[in-house]
C-alpha cells in the first residue's frame, strides 16, 4: 500500500502528460495525434494547478480549444488539397 | 430569511419578462425549442445571479437587500430579452455544402 501515496494530483498529471506525448509521437494518423494532444492539455492544466498558479491555469483553459480548432482547420484543408492533387494526378496519368 | 431575496428576484424577473412580452413557456416539444421564455432561462439566470451576488458579499444589511434583489430581477429580464440572443445566437443548421463549394474552385 506504499504505492497509493503516489496517487495525488502531481504524479497523476505528470503521468497523463507522458502518456499523451508518447501517443503524439507513436500514432501515425493526424487526427489521432490531435486527440492525444487533447489528453496532454488536461494533464498540463493539472500540472499548473498543482503548483497553484491559478491565473495561468485559467488562461490555459480558455485558450486550449482555440489551438485545437486552428489545428483541425489546418488538417482539414491539407487533406482536401492532397485528395484533389491525387485525383488530378490520376486523371493526367489516365490521359497520358 | 435569505430565501426572501431569491423569491423577490425571481418574482420581479418573471413579472418584467411578462411585461416585455416574453412567452411563458417554450413551444412543444419543449426539449428541442430555442425560444427564450420566462420559466427557462430567465428564472434560472435570476437564481444564479442572486447566488453570485450573495457569495460576493454584497448582501449585508436587511434594508438594501430587497432593493438589490429587485435590481437583479430587472437586469436579468432585460438581459434575457435583448442581449442573450445577440451574444449566443442559435446555430445554423447545415453548413457543409457551402464550405465544399468554397474549396472546389
Amino acid at each position: 500500500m506504499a504505492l497509493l501515496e503516489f496517487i495525488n494530483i502531481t504524479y497523476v498529471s505528470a503521468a497523463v502528460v507522458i502518456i499523451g506525448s508518447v501517443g503524439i509521437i507513436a500514432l501515425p494518423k493526424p487526427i489521432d495525434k490531435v486527440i492525444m494532444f487533447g489528453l496532454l492539455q488536461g494533464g498540463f492544466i493539472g500540472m499548473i494547478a498543482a503548483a497553484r498558479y491559478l491565473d495561468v491555469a485559467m488562461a490555459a483553459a480558455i485558450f486550449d480549444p482555440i489551438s485545437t480548432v486552428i489545428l483541425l482547420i489546418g488538417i482539414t484543408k491539407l487533406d482536401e488539397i492532397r485528395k484533389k492533387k491525387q485525383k488530378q494526378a490520376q486523371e493526367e496519368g489516365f490521359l497520358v | 430569511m435569505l430565501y426572501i431575496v431569491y423569491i423577490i428576484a425571481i418574482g420581479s424577473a418573471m413579472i418584467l419578462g411578462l411585461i416585455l412580452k416574453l412567452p411563458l413557456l417554450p413551444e412543444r416539444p419543449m426539449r428541442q425549442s430555442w425560444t427564450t421564455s420566462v420559466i427557462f432561462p430567465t428564472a434560472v439566470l435570476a437564481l444564479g445571479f442572486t447566488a453570485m451576488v450573495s457569495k460576493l458579499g454584497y448582501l449585508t444589511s436587511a434594508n438594501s437587500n430587497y432593493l438589490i434583489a429587485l435590481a437583479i430581477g430587472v437586469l436579468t429580464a432585460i438581459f434575457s430579452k435583448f442581449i442573450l440572443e445577440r451574444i449566443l445566437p442559435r446555430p445554423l443548421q447545415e453548413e457543409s455544402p457551402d464550405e465544399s463549394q468554397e474549396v472546389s474552385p
Partner: protein
Amino acid sequence: MITEIVGIIVLFAAVRTLIAQDRSERMLYLNVIGFGMSALIALYIQTPFGAIIAITYFVASTLSSNAIAYSIGRVKDEIILDD
C-alpha cells in the same frame, strides 16, 4: 481516499486511450479524462476560485471534443506522406 479513487480512474482511462483501436472509442475515454481532471483540480484547490477553474476547464474541453468529433465525420481516411 477520494483522491486515490479519482486518480486511479484517470490513469485507467489514459492508458485505455493510448491502446484503443478505434478513433471514436478514444473520444469516449477522453471524456472520462475531462471529468476526472476537473474533479482532481477541485479536490486539490479548496477555495471558490478552484470551482470556477474546474467548471471553465470542463466546458473548454467539451468544446474541443465537439470540434474533434465534427472533423472526424469530415475526414474519413487521410493520406499520409511518409518519406
